[in-house]
């Protein structure tokens, strides 16, 4: 009898029937923040300040790799279990998460988050808003788009910065000279041109792929031009054919085989820290070619509807996003660019950046951030991006006519976005 009872207890413990009671008690005093690298460093850096402000609430930062984090959050929203109090969301997922309805509407009381809007980079709030005006998250950092280039390489080719930025045509012409005289590629991937040119001429409230009524815009002239310019770069042999973040790409940037890279200003930190740490002083930053102001990525903080400690979560989000000192600390540990305008006006922004040869580039990035239009996001944006990428590849490798490729892309996007 006793043996059987012991066996039953052992079995029950194995199956996890005894565990629950112990966990529930600590949950009320622990604020769980789910995030991903490198953004987790910002939350960890703020933990001392948080402990001073809220000694009674323990901060627990849970960090998973970028794709795992967003998959885990998708699963947590689906099942309603395992949700953190604060959820970090990358720009790529914000449209989908904002439309989901699983996150607190921070525009509503008691948050009234829209009151903070004027204190942030003007384009950052609309990225986290759904069509009904709900605010799903508060931006923490943004990525003003810049053209980073190797000054030594363009000088050897007899090309100036103005040649790179005047127009897309002059950018490609400069690339031909660079390729001929130095052997370096103008850029990593012809697709980089496409991704920027499709953003040309956008005004506040415009969408990249969809208009306000959900009409697919991929056959518009900006897409045609984006495809034409991208193809021209490929035909002239100006791109290394290396997608970003691959070995090919990092090696190309490290060894000076790629002369320019269009990306968010935060790439400077990556270049300095691990991609090309030996190239200090060789890189410079300037505006994107053709007078386009665009943004690359950004991070947000949101509160799940089923979070346990919403009030504390909101306090934490305000600390991470609306507190000048925390924003500047994040800038220092991450090389991220603050979304908060007051942080952008700190004297720190005038400091020269040694990696960029002493250029006070943050001023330039602030100027760019001020010009980026507040583009409307759609939950099908990332799907449409996939379609455009694939059709562009067919234009490059199969000689598919551009008009046909864009028409096919439109049909596919309409098919997928049918619901």
């Amino acid at each position, binding site marked *: *009898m006793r043996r*059987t*009872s012991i*066996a*039953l207890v052992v*079995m029950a413990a*194995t*199956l996890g029937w005894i565990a629950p009671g112990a966990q529930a008690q600590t949950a009320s005093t622990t604020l769980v923040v789910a995030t991903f690298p490198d953004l987790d460093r910002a939350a960890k850096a703020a933990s001392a300040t948080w402990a001073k402000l809220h000694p009674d609430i323990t901060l627990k930062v849970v960090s998973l790799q970028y794709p795992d984090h967003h*998959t885990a959050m*998708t*699963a947590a*929203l*689906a*099942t*309603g279990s395992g949700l953190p109090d604060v959820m970090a969301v990358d720009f790529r997922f914000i449209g*989908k*998460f904002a*439309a*989901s*309805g*699983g996150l607190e509407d921070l525009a509503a009381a008691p948050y009234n988050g829209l009151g903070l809007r004027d204190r942030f980079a003007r384009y950052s709030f609309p990225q986290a808003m759904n069509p009904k005006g709900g605010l799903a998250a508060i931006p923490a950092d943004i990525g003003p788009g810049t053209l980073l280039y190797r000054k030594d390489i363009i000088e050897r080719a007899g090309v100036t910065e103005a040649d790179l930025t005047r127009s897309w045509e002059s950018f490609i012409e400069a690339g031909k000279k660079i390729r001929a005289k130095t052997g370096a590629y103008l850029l990593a991937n012809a*697709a980089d041109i496409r991704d920027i040119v499709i953003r040309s001429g956008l005004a506040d409230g415009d969408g990249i792929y969809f208009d306000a009524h959900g009409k697919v815009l991929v056959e518009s002239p900006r897409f045609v031009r984006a495809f034409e310019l991208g193809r021209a770069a490929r035909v002239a042999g100006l791109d*290394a*054919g*290396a*997608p970003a*973040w*691959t*070995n*090919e790409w990092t*090696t*190309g940037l490290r060894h000076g*085989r790629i002369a320019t890279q269009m990306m968010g200003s935060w790439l400077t930190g990556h270049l300095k820290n691990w991609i090309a740490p030996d190239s200090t002083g060789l890189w410079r930053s300037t505006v994107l070619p053709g007078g386009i102001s665009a943004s690359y990525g950004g991070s947000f903080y949101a509160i799940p509807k089923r979070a346990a400690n919403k009030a504390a979560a909101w306090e934490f989000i305000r600390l991470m996003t609306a507190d000048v000192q925390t924003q500047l600390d994040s800038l220092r540990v991450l090389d991220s660019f603050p979304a908060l305008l007051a942080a952008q006006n700190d004297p720190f922004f005038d400091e020269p950046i040694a990696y960029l040869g002493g250029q006070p580039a943050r001023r330039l990035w602030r100027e760019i951030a001020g010009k980026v239009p507040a583009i409307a996001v759609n*939950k*099908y944006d*990332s*799907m449409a991006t*996939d379609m455009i*990428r*694939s*059709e*562009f*590849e*067919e234009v*490059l*490798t*199969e000689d598919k006519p551009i008009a046909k490729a864009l028409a*096919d892309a439109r049909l*596919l996007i309409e*098919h*997928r976005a*049918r*619901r």
Partner: protein
Amino acid sequence: MRAADPIDVARPVRRRTRHQRARELAPYLFIAPFFVLFLVFGLFPLVFSIYLSLHQWDPTEGLAAMRWVGFENYWFALTDPWFRRSLWNTLWFSVVCGVPQHLVALPLAYFIHTSFRRGRDAVVGAYFVPYITSSVAIALIFTTLFSKDYGVINSALHALLGIDPINWLGDAHTTKPAVAFIVFWRFLGWNVVLYLSALQVIDKELYEAAALDGCGRWRQFWHITLPLLRPMMFFAVTLTIIGNLQLFDEPFILVDPESGVSLSVMTTAIFMYRLAFSDGDFGTASAVSWLLFLIIALLTWANSRLFNRSEGPDAD
């Protein structure tokens, strides 16, 4: 006395029953972990995915957002150009990776079986290593080997034949053959081991008798080895069909899913993954998984018919 009897008797009986019940229950509890795990991680996902495939569901909207759509997801998948394309890619890989695997593995196993006495295990082990190596490690090594500007393969081609650098994993023309080669290389050893194990159980007397009758090695291979290997061939080909139709790891890791060129190696399993985790359309993704299951079942059945028929009247 008579009134007290039932109480005195009933107590021990009841105690015994409880004791017996506990004893009867114990074995079930001991086997419960397997069944609980199987129910939670085996049966439930299976049944739930059928249920899901009949609904439209974006998981970020929570369980309440599920909407019944019947077979619409199946129809939607069948009319999607990317689904058809993924099927074509999958079948292409099945044939181009699968057929050479067996055409090479079988003679190779025969060669190892007949020619190696010492060091045979080492040779077999060398062929088997890719099979047990992590696919991520393999993908990383091959990404480096296939690198356009820094890869050994391009350097060798340039040095030996003067060929310009080929963007193996970045050009839609070359990604498929490159990925197919890696899959072929990876699973060759597995098939060699399967065929070797079957070769080892063939009675040596059959070969001796055939040799006495004047059969050369080729005729021995054709008339003794091949017919006796047929059951193993059926088993190995079935595994290849199932494995290749579910191909995911190698193309997914080798070709950046974010790049446009990834469409050229998008298998049905990858398409399913993208529908679910990139587009957030779990309903259609589940429908695709069941369509893929039907195709695998159909081809496995066809394979079994083919082998049964080719066994012929003299099979017994």
